[in-house]
């Protein structure tokens, strides 16, 4: 081995603490990138594989009732590969030991057992026996939530008839990756079930013999689903079609893809920031590390080594450190990526999980980190080799300091000499101090970005579930009912207030754009379920116009006064033009509202509702639930508190993990910066500090001088970090805009507090690590030698 290489390894071992700290900084950047990209790629790969293996349909359509013979004509639509008619509907479930009513989505299975499309991944048990109409297959998550097993029974009210169902199988379906009840935001496995039953059994229950009310299609490769959707709509219109839609609008897939979209935003932004910060810090730290090698560089040159050889030597040093960091980051990122992906797999009901981070993400992260480190080395080495050998070997002349505002006037009396040394050191190297401040500030900023998520989600819950919803229970009805139904609900136990709503499936069109949605007809001023502008509070619905969310306005490209065409997809399927009379902001979805009477008028129907909101006395809640389970026209029951709990629980499971990961990375950044800058300061100023020890300063006093500087810089960095964090977090929140969510740009003061405390803690920890070295300062060496 070349002696220089031997020196390299000895040097590395000698500065192992710093090597580790720099590697840690690099590892954070690489780690975040690998973790985020890995999770997305894996989630996408898992979803793709699942959809393909289980023949997830490309187009979906619901009708009131269509003859089975229509399936052949659907198959004739150009581009259609396979067609599967089926029967689906909602029902309520009564589970033993669970007071609240649960909603179930019933879906028919063909005689052959496994459907052609949207195949089931049977986890246990078997397919239903068609000769036995009471056999069901239950989705796995619901079974798990209630501890249901094969052979167990469920009581359901199916189309006004109470039935006892026997569980023969437990399964997963690509159609219900995100098993979400009507109107819900999160899967609620306790209150929402998917049941598969024999086709004959469901046909009997819903009076659909020889007919179907739902159809799914797969398309030939390269077929545009929109064309098929249009033809299908035409075909199904006279059978009461409620509008066909492509896979991208299928609810479970839509949620899943929204989630992947969100993750992509996060994966673009956060790792970029981390990597940039890490690169910047690596550069800074390496630069200073090389600067302390000045004498050695002079010596090498004196021996006759060329600038290039000397440069290459240090380049190798930095490359070794970088590679350690990259390896560490890749391992850490892969491990965390696996963890996050499995969290997703748990949240979305996947039958399997493919963890397949693309190698490109590792390579990109690694290359960027390496480039940053070598660039830092290049500038530092160039500065060092530029000196003539003799000059380089001579100890640098005492750095020239100058008097500043601190040394003059009244201020100077305030500070003792050690404090003055701290200030002078900081101001003597404004760029270096500034960079250190910026480095620490970035770790504060990253923390704020992570913690801000919790604030935003809390705000979202406050607005969406608390300010805008004052009902306790929402009941979806099997069909429209006259207003007298509200009286009937009022007479149920514990019900204090009732508010009816008429929801209509429509396709909203404006110009060339269109969007399928559920238009809600509401009373002018709502007391329970409130039309709520996130910026301005409750909204009274004006007569004769559409009140739409700004997200829908954006999707349609509409503005105030635009006339939107509504193709109603049920009843007599009227087509009407309605002006937009108000646009409001919401964090969730893309709702549209109209006055109840306007919707009834549009539907050419009498005053009817198909959804009611109830305020309930909690003491009588259980009695109400018992009643609801037996009420025939109840299709779905949603409990507000359960939704909030579910939302919180899901967030706690996933978001807290992310916040934890990012907090960990941010703390690592802080430790990396503070430890390195203190450590380098120590190697630069060891002699000065040892001198102070010799002339009678205690260990505490010299620690104060060295670490006081680090802590001063940290304290200076805190407000800077808060500012940068604020900008970044708000920027990220506003760049987060999917059909599903907008993230409120909120940062609570406590988030700033935690971010600062955590950074300060990391800084103190690093300072303590360096303090141990101060205790071992060699007091005698300093008297004789210079550097």
């Amino acid at each position, binding site marked *: 081995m070349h002696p220089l290489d031997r020196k390299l390894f000895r040097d590395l071992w000698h500065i192992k603490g710093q090597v580790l700290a720099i590697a840690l900084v690099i590892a954070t950047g690489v780690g975040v990138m690998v973790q985020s990209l890995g999770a997305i790629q894996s989630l996408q790969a898992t979803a793709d594989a699942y959809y393909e293996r289980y023949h997830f349909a490309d187009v979906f359509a619901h009708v009131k009732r269509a003859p089975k013979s229509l399936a052949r004509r659907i198959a004739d639509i150009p581009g259609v590969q396979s067609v599967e008619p089926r029967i689906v509907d909602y029902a309520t479930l009564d589970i033993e030991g669970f007071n609240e009513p649960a909603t179930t989505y019933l879906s028919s299975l063909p005689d052959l057992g496994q459907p052609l499309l949207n195949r089931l991944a049977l986890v246990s048990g078997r397919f239903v026996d068609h000769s036995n109409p009471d056999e069901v297959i239950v989705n796995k998550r619901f079974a798990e939530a209630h501890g249901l097993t094969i052979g167990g029974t469920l009581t359901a009210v199916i189309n006004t008839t109470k039935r006892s169902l026997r569980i023969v199988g437990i399964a997963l379906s690509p159609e219900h990756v995100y098993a979400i009840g009507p109107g819900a935001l999160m899967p609620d496995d306790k209150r929402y079930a998917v049941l598969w039953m024999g086709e004959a059994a469901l046909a009997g229950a819903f009076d659909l013999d020889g007919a179907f009310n739902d159809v799914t299609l797969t398309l030939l490769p390269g077929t545009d689903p929109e064309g098929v959707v249009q033809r299908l709509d035409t075909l199904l219109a006279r059978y009461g079609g409620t509008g066909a839609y492509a896979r991208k609008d299928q609810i479970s897939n839509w949620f899943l893809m929204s989630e992947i979209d969100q993750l992509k935003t996060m994966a673009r932004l956060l790792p970029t920031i981390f990597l940039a910060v890490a690169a910047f810090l690596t550069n800074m730290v390496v630069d200073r590390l090389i600067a302390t090698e000045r004498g050695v560089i002079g010596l090498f040159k004196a021996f006759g080594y060329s600038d290039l050889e000397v440069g290459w030597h240090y380049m190798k040093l930095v490359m070794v450190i970088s590679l350690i960091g990259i390896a560490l980051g890749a391992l850490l990122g892969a491990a965390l990526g696996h963890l996050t992906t499995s969290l997703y797999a748990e949240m979305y009901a996947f039958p399997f999980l493919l963890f397949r981070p693309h190698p490109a993400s590792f390579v990109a992260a690694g290359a960027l980190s390496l480039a940053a480190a070598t660039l830092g080395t290049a500038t530092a080495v160039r500065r060092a080799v530029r000196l003539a050998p003799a000059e380089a070997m001579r*100890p640098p*002349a*005492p*750095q*020239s*300091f*100058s*008097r500043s505002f601190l*040394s003059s006037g009244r201020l100077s009396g305030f500070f*003792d*000499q*050690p404090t*003055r*040394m701290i200030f*002078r*050191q900081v101001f*003597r190297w404004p760029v270096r101090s500034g960079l250190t401040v910026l480095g620490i500030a970035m770790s504060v900023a990253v923390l704020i970005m992570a913690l801000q998520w919790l604030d935003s989600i809390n705000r979202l819950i406050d607005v969406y579930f608390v300010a805008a919803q004052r009902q306790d229970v929402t009941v979806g009805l099997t069909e429209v009912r006259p207003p007298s139904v509200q009286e009937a609900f009022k007479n149920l136990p514990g019900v204090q207030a009732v508010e009816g709503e008429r929801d209509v499936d429509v396709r909203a069109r404006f110009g060339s754009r269109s969007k399928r949605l559920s238009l809600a007809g509401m009373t002018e001023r709502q007391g329970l379920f409130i039309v709520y502008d996130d910026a301005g509070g409750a909204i009274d619905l004006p007569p004769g116009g559409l009140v739409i969310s700004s997200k829908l306005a954006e999707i349609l490209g509409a503005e105030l006064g635009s006339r939107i065409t509504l193709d109603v997809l049920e009843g007599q399927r009227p087509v009407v033009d309605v002006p937009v009379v108000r646009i409001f902001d919401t964090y969730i979805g893309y709702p549209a509202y109209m006055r109840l009477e306007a919707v009834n008028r549009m539907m050419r129907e009498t005053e009817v509702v198909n959804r009611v909101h109830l305020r309930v006395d909690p003491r009588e809640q259980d009695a109400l639930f018992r009643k609801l389970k037996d009420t025939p026209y109840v299709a779905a029951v949603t409990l507000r508190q359960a939704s909030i709990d579910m939302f919180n629980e899901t967030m706690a499971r996933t978001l807290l993990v992310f916040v934890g990961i990012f907090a960990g990375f941010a703390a690592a950044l802080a430790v990396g910066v503070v430890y390195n800058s203190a450590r380098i300061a120590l190697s630069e100023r060891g*002699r*000065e500090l040892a*001198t*102070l*020890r*010799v*002339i*009678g*300063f*205690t*260990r505490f*006093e010299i620690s104060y001088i060295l670490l006081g500087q680090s802590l001063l810089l940290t304290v200076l960095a805190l407000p800077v970090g808060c500012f940068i964090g604020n900008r970044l977090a708000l920027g990220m929140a506003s760049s987060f805009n999917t059909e599903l969510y907008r993230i409120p740009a909120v940062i609570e003061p406590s988030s700033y507090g935690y971010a600062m405390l955590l950074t300060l803690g990391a800084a103190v920890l690093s300072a303590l690590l360096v303090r141990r070295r101060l205790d071992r300062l060699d*007091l*005698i060496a*300093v*008297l*004789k030698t*210079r550097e």
Partner: protein
Amino acid sequence: MQTDQREADDARKADAPPAKTALSARGLTKVYGTGELAVWALRGVDLDLREGELVVLLGASGSGKSTLLNIVGGLDRPTEGSVHFDGAEITRFNDARLTRYRRDHVGFVFQFYNLVPSLTAEENVALVTEIAPNPMKPSEALGLIGLGDRQTHFPAQLSGGEQQRVAIARAIAKRPRILLCDEPTGALDSQTGVVVLEAIERINRELGTTTALITHNAGISAMADRVIRLADGAIQDVSINGHKIAASELSW
């Protein structure tokens, strides 16, 4: 006239009763390493420093003079032997008490000045006066070594000789009982070195500070009260300088 003054001083000293011992070391041995690799830096050295005297420790490099000074100054511990100061055995002190000893009683001057670059001359001195129990004012200390007009200069703005004089001011501003100078002129040319030695001599004379000065330069020993020659870790001889001359008359 200067000579007259010195003669008068010498006369006074001669008349005075034998001075008290400020510090005494007995049987100091320092061994680095063990077994066959052991290096004996000191081999049983006895040393007394008397109140107010100026002692020059003379020896080639490796003779053990710095090791001796380090042990006496409370920077290092002997392998064997003891050092007594003010009735206390400093060689038994723990780290905190050794720091206290250095802080309160010992002034150090180093070959390479070891000034804090971020502090002005005055502030470098204040560094010590702030932590000492009975210091003089920084300006007074600087005045004593003739740098009253350089108080607000930073080390980078001072010549080597001036930096070393600031270091001396820093060492004596606490009114130390013992001033230890390790090759104070080692990094200076002879002309500048003389100026620095004059400063040390003046402190020794005017403040009565017991002073031990290490040098390998035999020429300097002419300014000492006593000259102790070290070689190979042991004291070779101790001579009382009958013809002490002023630092200003030294040259090498």
